[in-house]
Each structure stands twice: as C-alpha cells, then as structure tokens.
C-alpha cells in the first residue's frame, strides 16, 4: 500500500451537529463495496455477530476512494462515545492527521466546537471546516461562516457547505480530504503502533484498535506493550470496512484491529505503543496526554456481595476509558467500595449508569469531591479527594481548591441569568466575548467543586436549554473551606461529609438536613439529623417515629396480594443501607448533591 495515498481523519462536532449522519454519508460515497456485495457481507457479519455474540464497534473504518484515477485509502476514526468527552476525542485525534470540523448551520459554534478545535490544534491536525445542515430552512450559513472566520481565523473560501442529509457538497469534501489532509509520515523503521481504543470480546479476548505509525505488523509477530513490557503473539489483524476484514499485515499509516489472545486487562493501556519484541522501538509514541481525574466519588455496591463484581465492572470499563481511576476504600457507613476518579461529572454519571445497566449492580454513589490541596501547619502538603480524609482543623494552615475557566455560549438574553448562577457558585467574572450580535461567550472563574453539584442542570434551566458549556482547569486557589459532617441519630455518616466554603456552610447544611428528612423514611424511633462543623451544629431536622406500618384490610381476596406486598417491603429494606440502626435509602446519598430544597 502506498502510504502517500492514505488519509487518516476524524469528524469533530458539538453534540447533535450531525457528526453521525456525515459519517454515514462519507461511508456511502466512499464505500468500496458494491450494493450487492454490501448486502451479502453485512448479512454475513450479522451471522458472525449472532454466532459469537459480539457487536462489532464501528471505531475505525477503512474506505477506498478513487480520485483522478488513483485509489486512496481513508481511515475514518470515530470519536467514540459522547462528544462531550474531550479526552476521548483527543485519543482518536492522536491517530489522525486531519479532522473535519462540523458546525450546524442552524446553531453556529457551541462550547464543544471550541474545545474540539483546540484539541485538534494541540494534535497538529489539519482542520477542514464544514457547515452542515445547509438544506434546513432556518439555516443561517452567512452568520455561521462569520463565526468560524472570527473565532478560528478560517478563510471564507476554505469553509465547505454540506448537507449530510441530502448529500450536497460531499464530493467536494472528499476531494478536500485528499488535497488538504497530509498523508502519514514515516519517522522510523521499527514498529510503533498507537493503541487508541480497545474492545473486550469473550472469544477473542481484548481487541485493540491501533494506528500503525512506523514499521509493519504481521500475524505471528511477537509484540510488546511498551508501558509494561508484556509480550503477545499476534493472532489476527484486520480492518473494518465497516465489516471486519482480516489481513496478514498492517503497514505504516494504516488503522485497524489486532487480536493477540489478550486476557489480562491490566496489560492494556489505551494510549500505549506497541512495538516488536525483538527489534524494539527506542521510544514510545507521544500518544496523548494522560488525563488526570478531577472529580472523585465513592462507589459502593448496595449489596455487599457485589463488591467483586463491581471491581470487575470497573476493570472492564477502564479498558477503553483510561481516564477512569479506582481504588478500594472502606466507609464506616457503606462498607467496602471504591474511590473512583473521573474527568468530570458527565463522565461520572455515565460510568455509574453503565455499571448499573450493563453490569446490573445497584450502586450507592457518595457525593462527588474534587482534589483539595491541603497545607498543614507542619509545612507539609497533602492531596485530599475524600472529605472524610481531611485532617483536623487545627492541623491545617490552608486549603486550596481547583478552579475552572468557563466558556458558556448563550444567547445574549440570558446573560443576566448566567451571571446570577455563576455568582451563586462563588464565581469571579472575567470577561465576555460577543460571538455575533446575538450570542456571547461568558468567562468566569469558578471553583470546580461548585460545578460538581448541580451546575449543568441549573445552567440548562436558567437558559431554557440554550447554553452550551465547557471548561478548563486553571489551577488552585486558597479559600476558607471547612468540612461539614452529617450526623444521623448522633452518628456521623462518613459518606455524607462534604467540604464547603465557610460562608455557604449554613445554607448548605440546612438544605441537606431538610432533604434528608424528606428522603429517609420514618424509623421505629425518632431520628435527629444534624449538619455539624467540628462540634458546632449548623442545622437540625428530626424524622418523627413511625406510627403506622400495617396492612389494614386482609380478607380472603387480599391474602396472596398482601403477602406479596410484605415481600416487596422486605426487598425494599434490603436496598437500604443500615447506618447505626437507621435505614437509609440509596437516594439519600445523592440528595446531598442538590442545592435546592425538595418540593
């Protein structure tokens, strides 16, 4: 294969700007399979899927495209998962030379557009700007063009107009891919292949998605993972077209998959470099920036029997999500669980949801925390990511917390609401850029810990869903922070402790105890709930003792039904955590997130 005729690229876009439709359209236009073959092969592949029970993930598709009587190979590398995950985008971009930037003609630039462009530039990619959905009656091509020019400095001529839906402008786009995106460059003759994703398959083991940068890789080669020197023999190689098509060799510049009977999840680090065991490369590829988790929370199985299953679930998720971190921890209230680190709140939500849905484990998540930089009176300094680990106040000289810098894209009508929200979140106003006469990008510096709570939801409701939001971590600042504990029936529940700003502690404490009062069902005795700092009680609410817990009517017809009711009640109890002698439902641990009183 002629490396000069290879083009590797991704599509980047803000959510719902038409990334998937455009990818489909490119597949259709540059598909190298005839209609008939396509059908047959797809059917085959479905049989295969059925037989093996696997789903082939469309992560990197190889396409052939004829241009000026020459055959070109395209590798379209999907930016996997949610586009909001800049780190996931970034690792796909590391395998590319170019990126198609898609902007919706009816929406214009959004916060994620900005973030994606920045990532593409960080990776030295050539960017092809595309305005999509130009067929829509409410499209406003000129002003979106203006935004692209003003914000990123593109030239008017280089911005392509496309309708992924109708196919308008796709040929021109494919031509631009060939002309503008450079072919891969070989810098060494020894094998260096970047692992940019991995999939677990119960038959084949771990399937690696790789971009061969230098050298060739063949079936039977003994390869080495450069991060930990583990070695494997290559069993299968191939590309997705999008149907998986096995090959004997993958050469420089190519993107495909590799199977080597890899069973040990720990051996695989997405972002690692593969080389030959014998003629090893000297250095690993730069890969991509290892993302540091910024938000932490404890994840505990409701049923302690699920602890090992939870470990396994986290292992599997980490396989293609290197940003996820976890280590075992114990909570007095919740038993054995894991302290997990995430890149942000959305990441956290998605991991929690996947564990509950895909692995069928009922979880309790403790309130999320950021990493605090704590300076002690003895001059030392520690990182605290779990509020319960915060040392005694007497030992602390100061606490610093991470701050973010916001990009909040919003119609100018909502400037006031956004500012009010940011102000409530302890934000410092920095500046405001006008994107055009109707839209602004508002910059604040806000403590990350404030974003961790309900910022996204609030922003959505404050702006009727019009705002898009993105942020960068900008460093640490000292603040007057204290640990607030929650006592239930006089006993401190470690999983409910939070670190708050002193000036906001009273209000938060009051809301939390009131919410807990609503959520925790009445017990057989009266239960006080208190929010305390040290020994000082900031707020208190009492849950009255239960008065009634009876099936009033129990006649002939009712009996099996009443028995079921009782069984259900028993099951419900099992889903609660008993702390001291108080039964606390799962939602209580999440309620601490809410800054509002429950209605």
């Amino acid at each position, binding site marked *: 294969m002629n490396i000069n005729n290879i083009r590797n690229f991704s599509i980047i876009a803000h959510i719902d700007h038409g990334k998937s439709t455009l990818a489909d359209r490119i597949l259709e236009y540059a598909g190298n399979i005839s209609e008939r073959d396509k059908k047959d092969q797809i059917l085959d592949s479905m049989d295969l899927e059925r037989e093996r029970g696997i789903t082939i993930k469309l992560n990197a598709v190889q396409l052939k495209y004829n241009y000026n009587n020459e055959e070109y190979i395209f590798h379209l590398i999907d930016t996997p998962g949610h586009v909001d995950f800049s780190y996931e985008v970034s690792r796909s971009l590391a395998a590319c030379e170019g990126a198609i930037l898609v902007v919706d003609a009816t929406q214009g630039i959004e916060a994620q557009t900005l973030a994606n462009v920045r990532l593409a530039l960080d990776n030295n990619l050539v960017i092809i700007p595309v305005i999509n959905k130009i067929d829509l009656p409410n499209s406003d091509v000129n002003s979106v063009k203006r935004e692209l020019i003003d914000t990123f400095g593109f030239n008017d001529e280089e911005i392509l107009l496309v309708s992924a839906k109708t196919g308008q402008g796709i040929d021109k786009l494919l031509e631009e891919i060939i002309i503008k995106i450079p072919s891969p460059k070989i810098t060494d003759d020894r094998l260096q292949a970047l692992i940019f994703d991995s999939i677990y398959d119960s038959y084949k083991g771990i399937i690696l998605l790789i971009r061969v940068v230098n050298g060739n890789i063949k079936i039977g080669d003994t390869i080495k993972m450069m991060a930990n020197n583990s070695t494997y023999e290559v069993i299968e190689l191939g590309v997705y077209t999008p149907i998986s098509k096995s090959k004997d060799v993958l050469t420089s510049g190519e993107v495909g998959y590799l199977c080597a009977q890899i069973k040990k999840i720990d051996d695989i680090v997405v972002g690692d470099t593969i080389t030959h065991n014998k003629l090893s490369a000297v250095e690993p590829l730069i890969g991509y920036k290892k993302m540091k988790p910024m938000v932490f929370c404890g994840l505990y199985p409701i049923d302690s029997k699920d602890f090992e299953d939870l470990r396994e679930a986290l292992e599997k998720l980490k396989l293609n999500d290197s940003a996820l971190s976890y280590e075992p921890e114990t909570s007095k209230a919740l038993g054995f669980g894991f302290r997990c680190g995430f890149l942000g709140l959305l990441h956290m939500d998605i991991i929690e949801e996947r564990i509950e849905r895909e692995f069928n484990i009922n979880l309790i998540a403790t309130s999320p925390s950021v990493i605090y930089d704590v300076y002690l009176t003895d001059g030392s300094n520690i990182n605290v990511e779990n509020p319960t680990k915060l040392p005694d106040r007497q030992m602390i000289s100061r606490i610093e917390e991470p701050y973010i810098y916001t990009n909040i894209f919003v119609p100018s009508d909502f400037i006031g609401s956004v500012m009010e929200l940011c102000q409530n979140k302890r934000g410092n106003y920095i500046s405001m850029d006008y994107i055009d006469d109707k839209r602004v990008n508002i910059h604040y510096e806000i403590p990350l810990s404030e974003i961790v709570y309900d910022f996204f939801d609030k922003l959505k409701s404050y702006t009727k869903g019009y705002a898009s939001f993105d942020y960068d971590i900008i460093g640490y600042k000292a603040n007057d922070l204290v640990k607030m504990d929650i006592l239930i029936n006089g006993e401190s529940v470690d999983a409910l402790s939070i670190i708050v700003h002193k000036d906001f502690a009273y209000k938060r404490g009051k809301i939390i105890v009131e919410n807990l009062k609503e959520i925790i069902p*009445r017990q057989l005795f009266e239960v006080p709930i208190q929010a305390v700092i040290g020994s000082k009680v900031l707020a208190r609410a009492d849950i009255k003792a239960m008065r009634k817990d009876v099936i009033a009517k129990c006649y*002939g017809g009712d*009996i099996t039904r009443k028995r079921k009711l009782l069984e259900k009640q028993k099951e419900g109890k099992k889903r609660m955590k008993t702390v001291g002698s108080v039964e606390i439902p799962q939602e209580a641990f999440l309620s601490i997130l809410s800054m509002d009183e429950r209605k």
Partner: protein
Amino acid sequence: MKSVYIHIPFCNDICTYCDFCKMYYNCDLANKYLISLNNEIASNYKGELIETLYIGGGTPSSLSIMQLKKLFTIINIFNLSQLKEFTFECNVDSLDYDKLKLLYDNGVNRLSVGIQTFNNDILKVLNRKHNIYDIYDIYNIARSIGFNNINLDLIYGIQDIEVLNDDLNNLIKLNPEHISCYSLCINPNTKMYIDNKKQINEDLDYKMYSIIKKRLKEYNHYEISNYCKKGYESKHNLVYWNNERYYGFGLSACGYINNYRYDNTKNMNEYNKGNYIKEKYIISNEENIKYEIMLNLRKKYGINKREFYDKHNINIINYNNISNLINENKLIENENNVYISERWKYKMNSILIKII
C-alpha cells in the same frame, strides 16, 4: 374445608375509594353472571360440609329480588346442614324491607352493612348515595325482621376528628354486634387516586386509630381492624386469619384449597367462558408457615403455640426472630399464645418482615 366466599361484582354506584373488582349493575349481565357462577360452583365444589358462607362484593344487595332468589337456589348446591354463619354484604341504598326479609328467610344470619360514615358531606365525597337517616331506617328494619348479628363498616382517615367522634357516637348508639374500621387507603385505579387525593399523614391516622380503640372499649378488638361484642367474632373471617382453607367462587374471588391458593379472573368474558382461575400459587410447607404467621398475628391473641406445633411440628418460639422479638417486648408470650404487643400492633409490618 368449611368455608365459601362468593363474589358479586355489581354495584349501583362506584365508590371513589374502592379498588375491589366491581362494575355497574346491569340486569342482563347479572343474570348471565349468575349462570356462570352456578357452573363454577357445580364443577368445582366437592361436597364438603360448609360452616361459614360469605357473600361479598361489589354490592351483593344490588341484585334484584329475582336474582337474589336465583342466588339462593345456587347456594343450595352446598351441603349446609352444619352452616353456622351466613354473611351477606350490603349497602344502605340498595336495601329495603323486601330484600332484607328475603335474605333473612333464606338463612342469612349476619349482615355486613357498609355505612362508612354518618356525615352527609363525606358520604358525598365517597359517592355513597345514602344519608344518616337511611342508615337508621335500614338498621331498624333489619332489627325488626330479626337480624341479631350485624356488622357496620366505618372508614376513617377521611373525616376530621370531630366528625370521627360523631361517627363513633352514632355507631355506639346503634349498638351493632360487630364493627370493622378501616383507614382510608388511596389505591391506584380509584377515583380518589386519579383525582390526586392525598392520604392523611400517619400521625393523624394513628391518632384516629387510637380514638376508635378507646371509644369502642366495650368491644373486643380481636383483629387489627375489627371489633366485636363477646362471641360475635366473624367466624368466616377467622378462617382467613387462622390460615384455614376456603373456596372462593365468582369473578376475582380467591380461595385456598389443598396445597394451593388461587385467584379467579377479573375478566367477565373469560369468566363467562369458564376460564375461572387466573393464577395458582402452590403453597409449600415453608410458605404456609409464613402465611400462617402473617395472618395469625393480625389477631389479638396471635399464634396459638400448641396448634402451631401440632400443625407444623415447630415450636414457634424457635422460629426465626420470634424469641428476639419477645425479648424486645414487641411480641408477647403467655401460656398459650404469642401475639403482637399493643404498642406495636399498628406497626406490625415492620415486625412481620423480621419474621417471614
């Protein structure tokens, strides 16, 4: 096997809180239903001696005189030579002298009348069509005919405490042999639920329960929701609470025969086609014990230790958490029985789930 329940699903009006199986009375529908009922009984009844018979609903008294007569001929399939208690459920507005006389003449010896409250405003909220005067009239007619075992149903948790006290005054004045008091429970598929009516809070509910208990001190509070004068316990309902077997016939009726409990269909078409049983639950020995504890503990004196041992070959004291609960004074043990202490009676679910 000594008991039979028969369900009559028809009503002239639908109460806003009712989640039993019921439908509007229609003469043709009721005629057809009685034929099906006859068929069901004829094909499933095995000829046992029946000691208690209970006709419930719906509103059995919504049937016409002709239909009631038909119903009594159906009932004659049973061997009733040892019949001790024959209860007929009725509501005030569907009763008159003729119907009551017919019931009496056909062996009904216990009337259960759903009065719910004596307050005309609240009766309207419940969509009951009678008023306080009708209650007194019907009650006096029943007495004059000779009914000497009458149960009145009272609902609480819908009126305020003042009205509840009025209701209790009236009840005590009427002096029935048996009173059932149920706290209003707003179930899905009821008009109240759809209208988004809220249940009263449990503190007030408990307060009302306590008031009732105190005011009815002349009565024996022999089951959570039931009070009676000495010797007037409902024999039929005790069959349920003693975990004994019984037939259930009719739409949505439930029964417990041999080693299974069953629920009849609630679908009239299916029922008329002869597909009576919707679901069967095989009751294992273990499950039977759980049912027995759940049901027995509803009664004032709970579980009879000797009977429990004779039946299951298990000393109840050694069963699960029972001895712990006795130590915690949640359960009381005396010479013959194990029962829930008065303080915990209204919270008995929390005790039951520790046992079963």
